[in-house]
């Protein structure tokens, strides 16, 4: 399936885009999506295990992803 993964702050800068399109297996999990995004980024631009949100909630690496999900990579937060 094809997914548009949202990027923010330093991650968006690293990839020069607010979102990137990746193709993953239909039974892909969060970790697979991360791997696919990292393959598009310069070496070491993204950490191995960035925080990921699926449909506006933090998700673990083994969570299954569906084609209709909104997936986002979340840089270390700095609100306040």
């Amino acid at each position, binding site marked *: 399936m094809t997914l548009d993964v949202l990027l*923010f702050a330093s991650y968006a*800068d690293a990839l020069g885009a607010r979102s990137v399109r990746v193709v993953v297996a239909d039974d892909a999990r969060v970790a697979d999506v991360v791997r696919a995004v990292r393959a598009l980024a310069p070496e070491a631009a993204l950490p191995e295990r960035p925080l990921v949100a699926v449909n506006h909630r933090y998700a673990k690496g083994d969570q299954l992803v569906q084609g209709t999900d909104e997936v*986002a990579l*979340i840089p*270390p937060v*700095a609100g306040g």
Partner: protein
Amino acid sequence: MRTAIVSAPIDVAALTAEVAAPANGAVSLFVGTVRDVNDGRAVTGIEYSAYSAMAERELDEIAREAGARYGTTHVVVEHRTGYVALGAASVAIAVAHAHRGPAMDATRWIIEQIKERVPIWKMEHYVDGAREWVGQQS
């Protein structure tokens, strides 16, 4: 209970008034502001950006959790996005409660939770013209 990600200046007095209620004996307020120096560098302002839909959801969840945990529905939280100048408010939390202890406990819990989990990022602008993401050295 109300939470919002806002792009206009935060009206702190309005927030304080908003949580007041006759059954409350205590109002606790916390305001985060932009400091002139961070890590030894002179700052002119901070550009806040957010994953807005998720940030709104997290803020709302934090306020609800705080309400349940400390026993009040009188919680208002606003967090800025966009450019926030030196001295201006980036975040404001107002909690009213019958008693002072839980009002202050809830306020502190909320700001700690915001810092931990709300997807908001800041880029500091320095006097020398440089700009840098805060806390994102990869």
